[in-house]
C-alpha cells in the first residue's frame, strides 16, 4: 500500500486557480519529484497533505489516515519543509528546535545535533538575524530531526548554496533508503533528476504527466549554440540541419541533438570555421516541450 495516497483531490480557488483532480501514490522508500512552474499547485497539494486545507473533492491520505482528521497521528511521523519558511522573530535557532522537540515529545536530540553539524549551523543566533539560507537550513533540521517516515519537502533547496543543496539531496536519498516516502517539489529539473525515481508534472493545477526520471533523461536533447566565421560555413551547417534555429545576420545557429546523434553534428562542423561553440542551458519547460514533441512523433 502506498504511504502517501492522493486521490482525485480538487480545490478550486476560483478564476482557474487551485488544483483539479490530482491523484498520486508514493511508496515506501521512494522519492517522488513534484515539478511545475510557480503557482502550478505544488504547495496547495502539499498543504492538503499537511491537513491545512479541507479538500473540496477527493481525498488526501498518509499511512491510510485522513490528512485532515488524523493530522496529529500523521504529524508524529512526518517532516515538513514549507515553501515559504517563516520562524518566530523572537527566538534563537536552538530555542525553536527545542520547542519543536518538546511538541514532538522527543527525548533523544543527538540526531538533531548531528544535523546541525552537517549543515554547519550555529543555532545560538537569533532567527530574526539569520540569512535566508540559514533559515532554510534550520527548517531542514526541523523536518528531519525526528527521522520521519514521510517527508513533504516544498522547494527545499531554495536559498541554499550548491554545497548545501547537495547535502540536502543526499539527506533525502538516505531517508528514502531507510524506507521513508519523500515528496519533493521543485521548479528545478536538475535536482529532481538527480534524486527522484518518478516525477509528477503539475501545470495549471492539473497533474499532466507522471513519468519515470530515466525516460526523461534518455530523451534529453542538448542544444548547442554556434557562431560561424563565414557565410559559407553557416550555409553548409544549415543545409545539414534545416530545422536549426538560425540568425543569418550574426551567423549564429542553435542545434538541438540527443547524445546518441552528437557525432553527426561534430562531423558536419568539422568542415566549418567557427567563432564559438557552447551548450545552452535548458529551462524546465523546454525539456518538457522537447520530451512531448519526441513522444508524439
Amino acid at each position, binding site marked *: 500500500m502506498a504511504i502517501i495516497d492522493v486521490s482525485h483531490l480538487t480545490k478550486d480557488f476560483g478564476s482557474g486557480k487551485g488544483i483539479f483532480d490530482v491523484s498520486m501514490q508514493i511508496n515506501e522508500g521512494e522519492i517522488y519529484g513534484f515539478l511545475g512552474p510557480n503557482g502550478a499547485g505544488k504547495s496547495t497539494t502539499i498543504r492538503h497533505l499537511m491537513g491545512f486545507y479541507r479538500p473540496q473533492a477527493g481525498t488526501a491520505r498518509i499511512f491510510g489516515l485522513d490528512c485532515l482528521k488524523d493530522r496529529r497521528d500523521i504529524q508524529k511521523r512526518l517532516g515538513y519543509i514549507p515553501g515559504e519558511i517563516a520562524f518566530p522573530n523572537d527566538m534563537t535557532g536552538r530555542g525553536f528546535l527545542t520547542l519543536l522537540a518538546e*511538541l514532538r515529545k522527543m527525548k533523544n536530540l543527538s540526531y538533531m545535533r548531528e544535523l546541525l553539524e552537517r549543515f554547519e549551523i550555529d543555532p545560538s543566533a537569533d532567527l530574526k538575524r539569520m540569512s535566508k539560507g540559514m533559515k532554510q537550513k534550520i527548517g531542514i533540521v526541523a523536518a528531519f530531526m525526528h527521522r520521519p517516515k514521510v517527508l513533504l519537502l516544498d522547494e527545499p533547496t531554495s536559498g541554499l548554496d550548491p554545497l548545501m543543496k547537495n547535502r540536502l539531496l543526499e539527506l533525502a536519498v538516505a531517508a528514502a533508503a531507510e524506507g521513508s516516502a519523500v515528496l519533493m517539489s521543485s521548479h528545478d529539473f536538475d535536482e529532481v533528476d538527480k534524486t527522484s525515481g518518478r516525477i509528477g508534472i503539475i501545470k495549471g493545477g492539473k497533474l499532466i504527466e507522471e513519468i519515470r526520471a530515466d525516460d526523461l533523461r534518455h530523451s534529453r536533447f542538448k542544444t548547442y549554440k554556434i557562431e560561424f566565421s563565414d557565410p559559407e560555413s553557416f550555409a553548409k551547417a544549415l543545409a545539414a540541419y534545416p530545422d536549426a534555429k538560425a540568425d543569418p545576420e550574426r551567423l549564429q545557429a542553435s542545434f538541438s541533438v540527443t547524445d546518441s546523434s552528437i557525432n553527426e553534428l561534430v562531423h558536419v562542423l568539422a568542415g566549418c570555421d567557427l567563432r564559438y561553440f557552447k551548450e545552452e542551458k535548458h529551462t524546465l519547460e523546454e525539456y518538457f516541450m522537447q520530451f512531448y514533441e519526441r513522444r508524439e512523433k
Partner: protein
Amino acid sequence: MISFPLLKYHIRSNAKFLLAFTAALCLFVTVMCNVFTPVTLGSLAGAAGGTMLGDLLGKANTLAGSLANTFFAIMAIIFPMLYSILVGNRLVAEQVDRGTLAGFLAAPVTKLKYVLTAAVYLVFSLALMWAVVGAVGCVAAHAFQPGELDVDAYLTMVAGCFLYHIAVSGFCFCASCVFNLSKTSLGIGGGVSLFFFFDALLVKLSDDLDFLKYFTLNTLFDTQKILGGSGYGTDFIILAATGLTMYAAGIVVFTKKDLPV
C-alpha cells in the same frame, strides 16, 4: 487540551507587552491614590464644575469614586484594550499571516490545541494583569491614605473591569481567528474595541445619545452601580458570557477554516 510547550512560548513571546501594560496601569493607580486626597478632590470639583471634564469626573468625593471616574473610566479601559488588540492579533492571525504557524503545526499539535492554548494565554494573562493591579491599588492606597479606600468597592471594580476586558479580548481574539491577514484582524478587532470606547463616551456626554448605550460593552461596566453596591451582577454575567461566546466562536472558526501557511 492545551499544549504546555506552546503556552510557555506564548508567555515568553508576549512577556514584554504584558509587563509594560501592567506596569503602566500600576503606575496610574499608584499616582491616583497619591493625588486624590480629600483636599484635592474638593478643589478639583470646584474648578471643573460645569465643564465637560466636570461631567466626566462626576461628583466623586471618595477615593474609590475618584478612581471610578478617572482610572476605571479611561486608563483601565484603554491600556488593556490595546494589549488585547495587539496580543490577540499576535497569537493567531499574525502566525497565519507570517507563516510561522506552519512550523508549530508541523508537530503533532491539532489546530484545536493550538488555538485553545492561545485563548488560555490571553485570558490568564489578563487575569494576572488585574490581579496585580488589584493588589498594587490596595497597597498604594494603604501607603498614601490609610483607611481612605473602600477596598470592597475597588476590588469589585477590578473584577468588573477584568470581565469587561474578557469581553473585549473575545472580540479581538475572534477577529484574529477569523482573518488570515494581520491588518484585517487588527482593523476589525481594534476597530470594534475602540468603537465601544468612543460610543460609551458619547453616551456620557449627552442624554440625546442615550440609545447608543445598546451598541457598546462599556455601559455594562457601570462603576456607579458598583459604588452603589448593587445591580451590577447581571452586567457582569453578560460581559463574561459575551467574552466566552466570542472566544468559542473564534476557536470554532479557526479549527474549520483553511490555513494558507
